[in-house]
């Protein structure tokens, strides 16, 4: 909250076109090799509010009013998390169950989220080839995330494919983390400055499959 306020105060208004809310859910950040450096790389970027949900609600007692207020104050909502059983860690499910209330997020009077952009930034242990009908996970990552896609649609939000990192357990050893984080910063800054082509992005299997196709440079 304070981050957003200070951004409002000090930012040149024309620069930040969209304010980004990054809801990070990782129950053991101290062991994280991908989500933690990703979060650390963007925490100080203007226009981004990073919320560590497990730190803020260690007892899962989510403050519904505070979270709804945050949603109102941002234009892009991102769930950042490792993929747990083809879905989010528990606290993000709890967050959905509590915060996306009837007459706030959905229902005849529930228009608070209309027009906002939503997607997942996830890390998955399996390699990308496993996420297809012939692979051992049988479904693509977009297919597995259908419940979240539909949640976004019911709330009137624009859904984008996930910003996904596969083979995440070996990402440091194989030297892929640096590129992933650089891409992450590019995508967030482009979203913030309205330099990301939403229409093309919606059709991709994942948001980071071809950055040059969706990003317009400054």
């Amino acid at each position: 909250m304070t981050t957003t306020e200070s951004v409002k105060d000090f930012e040149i208004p024309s620069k930040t076109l969209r304010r980004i809310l990054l809801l990070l859910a990782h129950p053991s950040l101290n062991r994280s090799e991908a989500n933690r450096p990703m979060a650390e790389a963007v925490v100080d970027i203007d226009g981004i509010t990073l919320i560590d949900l497990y730190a803020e609600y260690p007892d899962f007692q989510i403050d519904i009013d505070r979270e709804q207020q945050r949603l109102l104050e941002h234009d892009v909502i991102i769930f950042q998390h490792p993929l747990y059983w083809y879905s989010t860690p528990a606290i993000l499910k709890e967050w959905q169950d509590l915060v996306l209330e009837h007459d706030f997020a959905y229902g005849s009077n529930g228009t608070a989220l209309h027009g906002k952009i939503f997607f997942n930034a996830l890390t998955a242990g399996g390699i990308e080839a496993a996420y297809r009908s012939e692979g051992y996970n049988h479904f693509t990552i977009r297919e597995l995330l259908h419940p979240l896609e539909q949640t976004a649609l019911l709330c009137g939000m624009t859904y984008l494919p996930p910003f996904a990192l596969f083979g995440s357990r070996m990402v440091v050893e194989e030297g892929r983390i640096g590129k992933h984080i650089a891409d992450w910063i590019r995508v967030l800054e482009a979203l913030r400055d309205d330099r990301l082509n939403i229409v093309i992005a919606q059709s991709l299997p994942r948001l980071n499959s071809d950055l040059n196709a969706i990003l317009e440079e400054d």
Partner: protein
Amino acid sequence: MGGLLFQAFIYLCAAVVAVPIAKRLGLGSVLGYLLAGIVIGPVIGLVGSETQAIQHFAEFGVVMMLFLVGLELQPRMLWEMRNRLIGLGGLQVGITAALITGAALLMGLYWSVALTIGLIFSLSSTAIVLQTLNEKGLTKTEGGRASFSVLLFQDIAVIPMLALIPLLVLPEIAGSGSEHLPAATGAHDDGGHHEDMSLVAALPGWAHALVVLGAVATVLLGGHFLSRPMFRFIAESRLREIFTASALLLVIGIALLMTLVDLSPALGTFLAGVVLANSEFRHELESDIEPFKGLLLGLFFITVGAGIDFGILFADFATVLDLTLGVMTLKGIVLYGFARLFRLETVDGWLFTLGLAQAGEFGFVLLSFSLQNRVIPPELAATLSLVVALSMLLTPVLFILYDKLIQSRQIETGGRKHDEIEETGTVIIAGNGRFGQIVNRLLVASGVPTVVLDHEATTIDMLSKFGVKSYYGDASRPELLHAAGIESASVIVIAIDDRERTVEMVEHVHRHYPQIKILARAFDVSHLYLLNKAGVDIAVREMFDGSLELGKAALNAVGLHPFKVEKMSQAFRKHDEAGLDSLYELWDENTEMASNKAFLARAREHGETLKEMMEADRLQLHDRSERGWTPPPKGYTKHMDE
């Protein structure tokens, strides 16, 4: 009596005026004391020859300082230091003594005189260096540790030197009977004193050795086995001054024992300190001895300043200055060489070099001892005393040089290696009763280092049977908090069983250590408010959580669904906390809650809202406690189906 009061007045007055000014000017306390001494001694002549006697007394400050150093040093750490202690310390003393002896020979002195001078100037000033390192917080740096190793070795090396010097009697002055001491400095008759007291002088060599071993064993075994029951017994009397008296008794007793067997009292008390470093009474002993040590050392420095004879100094100023600079340069070169050889970082190397380049208080002891044994001619001794004093006087200047030039340059270039990363700071837990114990167990189990203080010797004793280490002491005393390391702690948990003292402690810690987080046990709401006002960061009512837990158990027992009970208790807690915040505005420290009308009205009003909330819940309305799991209204999908 009048004379004593007058002297005490003069010395204290000089210290009180000079030291804060010196500190303010960034000169450090040691230089302040030295200057105070120069002013009251040679400059305005308020004190005279009695400074020698006083200096002898004040040297006891060094003994106390070594005791305190020992208390900080666990036996294991001492063992880990052994290479540095013997290697670095031994080489420094040996090579410095050899070089200075050589230089003295070149100046045409007789070999035995030259050797004595070499020995005298191989020593540095434990008093000045340790005091300054402490003051500047450099004790724990590599340079500080190396300095300490060398100083400790030197303090031990004084003993064989005292044995060697009488063998170096100078033929031409033997029997010429120059008994009186030159009035040059605070040289005193330590040697004579020491022989009077000796129990072992008349014994044959083997018996002497046995007695000495016996004395050391007494200190080690006594410290290990006897001190604990003794201190526990004294602690149970709850008389603070008697505990202080017993701490002094311990130090003085050991010093006396060591003197009786011709050993260095400083070494003896140091060993006693090491033995007690693991004791639960360590912090209490530290805080008791600390003020005495500080005052005595201060007095010692004043007497060094007061003892400088400006008559001789000015008569022979060039010689004294040349000799002083020569000795310090030579010592500095040797020290710098060892700093490189023992691979100290540049900053630490300079600290080591500049810090130890002076001659020390033991130089005075050896000089007067040599004089009595007719090893050195009196005129030479007078000059050398001045050299020792002047080099000590210059040491604070070198420390300032170190601060200004070397340390600051290092910070600018960012050349300092990262300190060992500490994941969490230490947590001090004051009070280890039923409350503090739980806090401590949780922290220790999570790998957070704690220092636990308690004023019940029996509690400490009982807990040690469960393997929990805690220290004896009244945690509401600022000196004890200081001894427990509050300067470097990140959190203090105040869990003592005393309302007023808890508030006082919060006030004290908040005022003096604003960087530390203060967590405290509150007894009830009014106590909680008092703690808030005193500056507590987090206060928790001791009864609240336990009572709430039992309330939940009762709701479960009457058959409510456990998850609903959980939600109710969470709602209750939130409601209660909100009430505490809103009532704080109306709280008045000086009015009883029960007679504060506005407060009572608001409290009643807030109580009503809880009832409403809970009643609303029973009516299945869209209420707070179940908000998150309230299903959407029946038929809500109709507009979506269309």
